[in-house]
Structures are given as C-alpha cells and as structure tokens.
C-alpha cells in the first residue's frame, strides 16, 4: 500500500494505479460520509463516484495544508451538498405530521446504546433539509451562518431547523430505546 504522499503524486500524474490505490484506501471512509447525506445506499454510491471523479481531477487543489483525509472529507461533504441541491424537488412542502414532535422531557443517551447503523437509520428518517442541517452543524461542525450560505437559506431557518431536527432525533431515539427495552421510559 502506497503512502498518501505517493498516492497524491501518482494522482497528479493521473496514474491509474495511484487512483486505484486511493480508491482502495479511502472508499470505505468516504462512503460512510456519503451515507449520512443520502436517502439510500445507491444514492450514496453515486455521490461516492462523483467524489472520486472530483478528487482525481482536482487533486492539485490539495495544497498539503491540513490532513489529506480531512481534505477528502471536505470534498465529499461539498459533493453531497451539490447533490442535495440538484435533487431538491418540492421539499418545501413538508407533511404536517413532521411537526408534531414537541419537545418532551430531558433525555441523554448511553454512549453504546445505539450502533452507527441505527443512528444512520434514525438520521435518514429526518426530512432532507433537516438532515442536511444536522449533518453540517452537529457532525461536520459548520456554523449556522456558514450553513445558511451553503444551503441558500436564512440563518434563522438553519437554527430552527436544527433545533427541530434535534427534537425529532431525540424523540426517535427515545422510542428506539423503549423498543430495545433496556431503559424503559424517559428519565
């Protein structure tokens, strides 16, 4: 397995071998990111392809500042955002049921209670816009002001969507926890 440095140099020469190595080394990591931004696996794999095409043809944009995986991650997130904008259709009409989740109780969760797959499933149940905001704010660490710019929405919208997303997640996780039966009821 080549080092990142060798892989980057190879990719700069458009070496097919280096590209394959890059894929072998990082495709799983990047697909993990894409999964969070996609409705399903097929969409995630489509995004993954776009990510690699962008990486292969824009590798010179990686200046060496910061870690290489960090740069790949940024490319993946940006590609996912592009994909989100492209796929957005009639999403501003959200079923009223989505709003019925009032803030109930105060909850914290045991760290190992849920698997990553379960969390992903819960995340995927959010409306697409909420999922985007939650991903960008909670996991990627963007500021609401930045998210507003990225998603072309109001700062307050980002904030309110985020708080609703969080409330919905909390409710869903509570339900899931009850189903699992380990911690019956809320605290």
């Amino acid at each position, binding site marked *: 397995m080549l080092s990142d440095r060798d892989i980057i140099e190879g990719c700069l*020469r*458009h070496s*097919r071998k280096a*590209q*394959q190595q890059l*894929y072998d080394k990082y*495709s*799983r990591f990047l*697909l*993990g*990111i894409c*999964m*969070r931004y996609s409705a399903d*696996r097929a969409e*995630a*794999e489509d995004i*993954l*392809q776009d990510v*690699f*095409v962008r990486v292969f*043809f824009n590798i010179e944009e990686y200046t060496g500042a910061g870690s290489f995986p960090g740069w790949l991650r940024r490319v993946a997130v940006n590609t996912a955002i592009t994909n989100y904008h492209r796929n*957005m*259709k*009639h*999403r*501003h*009409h*959200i079923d*009223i049921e989505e*709003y019925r989740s*009032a803030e109930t109780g*105060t*909850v*914290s*969760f045991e*760290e190992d209670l*849920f*698997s*990553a797959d379960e*969390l*992903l499933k819960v*995340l995927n149940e959010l*409306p697409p*816009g909420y999922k985007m905001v*939650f991903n960008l704010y*909670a*996991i990627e660490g963007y500021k609401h002001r930045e998210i507003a710019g990225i*998603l*072309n*929405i*109001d700062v*307050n*919208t980002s904030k*309110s*969507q985020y708080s*609703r997303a*969080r409330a919905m*997640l*909390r409710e869903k*996780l509570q339900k899931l926890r009850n189903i699992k039966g380990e911690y019956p009821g809320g605290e």
Partner: protein
Amino acid sequence: MATNRRHKDIEDLFRDKFEEFSFEPGSGVRRELMRRVGRKEFLRFNPARFNIYYLTAAAAIAGISLVLIFSDVSSRSETDSEPSSNEGMAIIENTTTATDATGDTYQENITDVQAASGEVSEQSEGPVTVAKSSEQPDTRIKQSYTVSIEPPAGSGITRIITVTETTDLKSLNESPAGSIKASAVEGCAPLMIRFQSTTEGSEKLAWTSSDGRRSEGKEVEWLFSEPGVYRIILQVTDDSGKEDYSSIGVTVHPSPTARFDVSPVNSNISDREIMVFNYSEGALTSAWSFGDGEASSLREPTHVYGKSGSYNISLTVTNEFGCSDTASLVYSSSAGNYRIDFPNAFIPNKNGPTGGFYSPRSDEAANVFHPEYEGVTEYHLVVYSRTGAVLFESRNLNIGWDGYYRGQLCEPGVYVWRARGRFENGEEFSRSGDITLLRF
C-alpha cells in the same frame, strides 16, 4: 445552560459514532468509477502524460488520409485489388507510371491482345499475379502489363493476357469494349448506384465489384451500405468469345448518425427552457431547429420556448464529407400544465416578520404561506381572519404570508384565504380554502 448540555449529548452521540463510520462500496461502484474516469481522461488532453488514445486517433487519421490520397491517385492508378478473395475474377493490379493527367472521368480498358479464345477468364480461378512488361510504343497507351492468371491447380492450362491501360478518352470510343455509365461515383453511405453498360451489341455482360458482388445484364443496381472505395469491373464477352474489361471506381463516404434527447432545464419550475443532449456520432457540425422559428448551430444549445405547445425539434448533423443525417422529435412544452396549489398549514418564523418573500429553496421549513404554481401570470391572494378582517394581501407571486399582522405574530388557528388570477393561457382561476397557522 442545562438545555445546551442535553443537546450536546445527541450531537456527541452522532459525532462519535460517525467519526469512524465506514461502508464497503459495492464492487460495481469501482468499475463504473474507473469507466467514468477513463472517459473523462480521454476527453481531457493531458500533454504531461502521453495518451494512448491520442496516438490511436492520430494513427487512424493518418490511415484515413492515406486512403483518401490513394483513392484520389487511383483515378489514375489502381491499387485497390483484393487478391484471392474472389474466385474467377480477374483482378487488375498495377502501379502508375503516368505523369500526364488528362481528364476527370477515368475509364480503364483492359484489352486482351492475345489472339485468344473466350473460355479463359470465366473459368480461371485462383490468384492473379501481375508483372510489368515493356512499354508500348503507342503514344496513346501509357502503360502495359502482363497479367498471368493461374488456372486451377491440375488443369495444366497456362494463360497470359496483356492488359493495356489508356487514358485517352478518344481511344475509348474506338475501343470495342463498352464503357460504364454510373449514376454516381461518390456519395454518402448507404449509397445506391446504378451502373449501365454503354455497349449496343449482343455481348454477354458480367459485373463484378471489389467487395465480391457479381451480376449479369446490361445494367445493375447495387447498394453500398459500408463506407469505402470500391471498384466495379465490367466484363464484356462478344459473340466471337473475345473479352473486354471496363472498370469504374466509386467512393462511399461514411454518414453521421443524428441522435438527441431533450430535457427541461428545471422541471421543478417550468419546462419551457429545455436542454438538448446531442448523442450524434461521426458529426462535424450540428444544425438545430426548434420548431418555433429558432435555430442554433451549437452542439448542445439550450432553448426557451415563449409559449407552451408542441414543437417539432430537429437536428441535422453533417460530417466532413458533407454527408448528413436528421433526427427529430415532437416536444410538448408545459403540456398544458397550468396549476396553482396551496398548502393547508404553515409555521411562521417566531423571530419576527420576514416580509413573506420566499423561494422554493428558502422556504423548506414552510415559514411562509404561499402556493406552488406553474404558468401563472396574474395573481391576487387575500388572507382573512375568522371575523372577516383582511390580514394579508399580495399581488406578487414571490411574496406570501409570513403569519404576522401589523408586526404581531397571529394566533395559532385556522385562517381563510382566497386567490384569484390568470394562467398564461388566459384561463382564469379562483381558489379559496383555509390555512392552519401552527406554532411550536
């Protein structure tokens, strides 16, 4: 703050789990990706890395130009022989020594000068070898060759005929053999050509083409579907059994294939602006006609239809030989898709009046009460309270109700609205209903 602590819990939960989150992509992803990368590499000239495709392309272009040059030269000298592929066919192969060109129309006459009987070429099978022999003193004759046709093995027959080639048009008239009249000597594939013999007598006529077709009779009509350079040979056998040959060369150019697809640029809002996808093959230039009088010569133009309706979009592609192909389809713009729909609930922004300006993108959270529409020109929305007071009024499609009245957020509950207006096709609409204002 206590609430912040609790919120952090969920964030941490997700952040920790997703930090090392990885998924194994399907095996097809890699293959598809590499195909895409390969395609993109191919289209992207990269001088730093010598590209095998460009080498291949250069070789192909060189090959094609060689063929073109030779087919040009072959109006004087024939090089397009196809040895041993055709039984019983005399193939004439020679190299030119002629330097003085005399005419555009070229006819090749092959005269059997040996006092020979007529049973020869018909039966002769097998390879033909050509040996150049002495120059004839006749000024009219540029070249002469000895063509020996090997008879089938074991027959014990050896035949030698001498073929002379003339370029003097006058001599053709004197020639006992008839010449060939062709409906075309050049054209685009698929090309149908009718060949006619100009002979008047009762000679026996046999036609052979360099791609192995054979026929008999005074005229023959052949379809050349594959591009290439072909030679048609006419063998004339007179009553006394004497044979004469005429030949003519035809060039069939490749034709492009026109193919395209149409897609609305943004089906979300309107399908009057369209994007075309040009899938044509072998095309050099494209000519689009959009059926509304507009045209374009771009490869993939976009187009905006001023009015909705059915349009005949056609694409004519032409290649470097002037060969063309046309494809067309009927596109229904907007397809009578005029609509306006209103939601039945919305959630005003609690932080203050927003002015109600919205776009489909900016109002994902349904903060503004507004319709979704297509093809609306005139619009007037009024929102009433249950007592009948006008709370909001808008004639601007881009401004909906933000849920505020005189700077105060209205109470959650049901409000009544009425909308009137006109679609682009002139049809008027009038809708009314109720809207639930929600607050969380």
